[in-house]
């Protein structure tokens, strides 16, 4: 009897938290299909009286969402690739070699995480202005500028996660390869990289998700044709204050790509992120 009531309590709590967790997402999707007057008058609250797929067409027509989506994919994709290369190289170096300056680099990786992003924002903006007047290369409002900032910005945290993965690869494997006459570079490319691939994949996706979520820098460093989704959505809702239907449709479209990416790669991400954390 006690067992049954315990079980009941367990499932009751589980289902309550599950409903609380998923309800806001359900709410976002359901409202993206409603008629706006239905939202404003509070009719047919939990289920639309008619599914208005037209909302998505209207949203697409009202803002240049296709452009924002394309821009976000370009920026986040390239950021992911560059940051993965940078952080893989650095993390391998930090976890395998002893060299003067290693401690300082390790400490400054941690230190960068303690600085509020806003502190970099104005100086970087000023630096880019200066760079433009010196070299005539425009970095503000262009892809290279934003990608450059992003790809270095997410490196410290990635290095931190990746170090755990490289540390987990037994050094004996590399020593054996060294004795067999492999060069360091060969060892890195042919032995270490394949072994660390799951961790590198996880880190890469994590970088993509973080870049997809970045608003503050994109706000200042993008212009008309390089605007990414967060800035685009902000502009959009500024212009359509009470069009909750379109707002929710835009939110759904902005969430969908990362949801798909996450659940396609879920196994890698979970294994990757937890492996680093448990060691502490």
């Amino acid at each position: 009897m006690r067992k049954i009531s315990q079980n009941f309590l367990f499932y009751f709590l589980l289902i309550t938290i599950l409903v609380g967790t998923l309800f806001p997402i359900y709410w976002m999707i359901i409202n993206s299909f409603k008629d706006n007057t239905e939202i404003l008058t509070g009719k047919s609250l939990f289920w639309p009286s008619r599914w208005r797929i037209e909302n998505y067409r209207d949203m697409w027509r009202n803002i240049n969402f296709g452009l924002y989506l394309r821009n976000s994919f370009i920026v986040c994709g390239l950021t992911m690739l560059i940051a993965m290369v940078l952080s893989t190289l650095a993390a391998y170096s930090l976890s395998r070699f002893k060299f003067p300056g290693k401690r300082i680099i390790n400490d400054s990786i941690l230190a960068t995480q303690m600085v509020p992003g806003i502190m970099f924002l104005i100086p970087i903006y000023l630096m880019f202005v200066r760079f433009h007047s010196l070299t005539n290369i425009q970095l503000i409002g262009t892809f290279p500028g934003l990608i450059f900032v992003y790809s270095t910005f997410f490196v410290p945290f990635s290095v931190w996660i990746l170090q755990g993965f490289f540390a987990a690869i037994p050094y004996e494997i590399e020593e054996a390869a060294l004795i067999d006459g492999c060069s360091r570079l060969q060892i890195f490319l042919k032995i270490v990289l394949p072994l660390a691939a799951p961790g590198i994949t996880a880190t890469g996706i994590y970088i993509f998700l973080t870049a997809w979520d970045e608003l503050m820098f994109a706000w200042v460093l993008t212009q008309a044709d390089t605007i990414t989704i967060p800035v685009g959505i902000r502009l959009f809702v500024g212009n359509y204050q009470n069009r909750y239907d379109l707002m929710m449709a835009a939110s759904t479209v902005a969430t969908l790509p990362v949801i798909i990416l996450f659940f396609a790669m879920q196994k890698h991400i979970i294994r990757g992120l937890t492996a680093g954390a448990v060691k502490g």
Partner: protein
Amino acid sequence: MKIKSTIQEIREKSYAYMFILPMVMGMLIIHFIPMLIGIIMSFLDLNQYTLSKYLSAPFVGFRNYFDVLFNPKSTIRIGLLQAVRNTIIYTIGVTGGTLTIGMIVALMLNKNFIGRRLVRTLFLFPWIVPTYVTGLLWAFIWNHEIGVVNYILTKVLNIVEKPPFWLMGPNTLWAIIVPTVWRYWPFAMLMLLAGLQTIPDELYESASIDGANEWQKFWHITIPSLKPVWSTLLLVNLITNVYSFNIVIMMFGHGAGFPGEWGDLLMTNIFRNSFQLWQYSKGAAASIVLMICMIGIVAIWYKLFREKW
């Protein structure tokens, strides 16, 4: 032999430096030089008129710091103390909520039941929703007239008669804490669950033989064993929440409004002062003061959680 090993050592080191060089270069340009400029900026009078002069703007010494810390009449002080108060409450609320719910759900998922994997996947959903969408969505949920929270309170549960304002007055603190907890607890749960699975069953079994109850087992085995995980989560949460920006900025006026004196956080405050009121130097001074406080917090954290091991 000795020479050979020295050569090899040099070659090893050159690899080490070659591998790390790209990152160091990037960090130099994107982290350290801007930080240096930021520090210089905080000693200048940089506003919309002097911006074009760049770093040759008039030097004012510690005046910006004085304005931020001790001068109640300064323009940057408007709302700053409220922002400090809100940030402290917000950070404690979100960190506490995130870790508590994360721990409860991790313990539940650590049991065997049908559909466990599916439930874990479903729980991760909020963590993938972009933060700017989170802010937008919850502003809609909290809405006074058409928000679903007020609908449930007044029409479904009938607990309150007059629907409360969630995005005005002290309620605002709840309105920003709840979405942030909603967005971040799945990550804490994931980490804690991974930690739970590494605790050997024998520990619990021998405790049972010694007659320990569930609560004692939790307090004396689970909590200490998970210390590396929850202490890391504590630090990550402290930093992200003190520097929280996206969720709150998107909740008010769709990313252009003032969050009100009970919703304004330090980041939104400094951002507004820097970019909407053009007080670049005072904004820089405020963020440096904040950063120094943060370094203090992290130092305390290190003393508490890392030195003893």
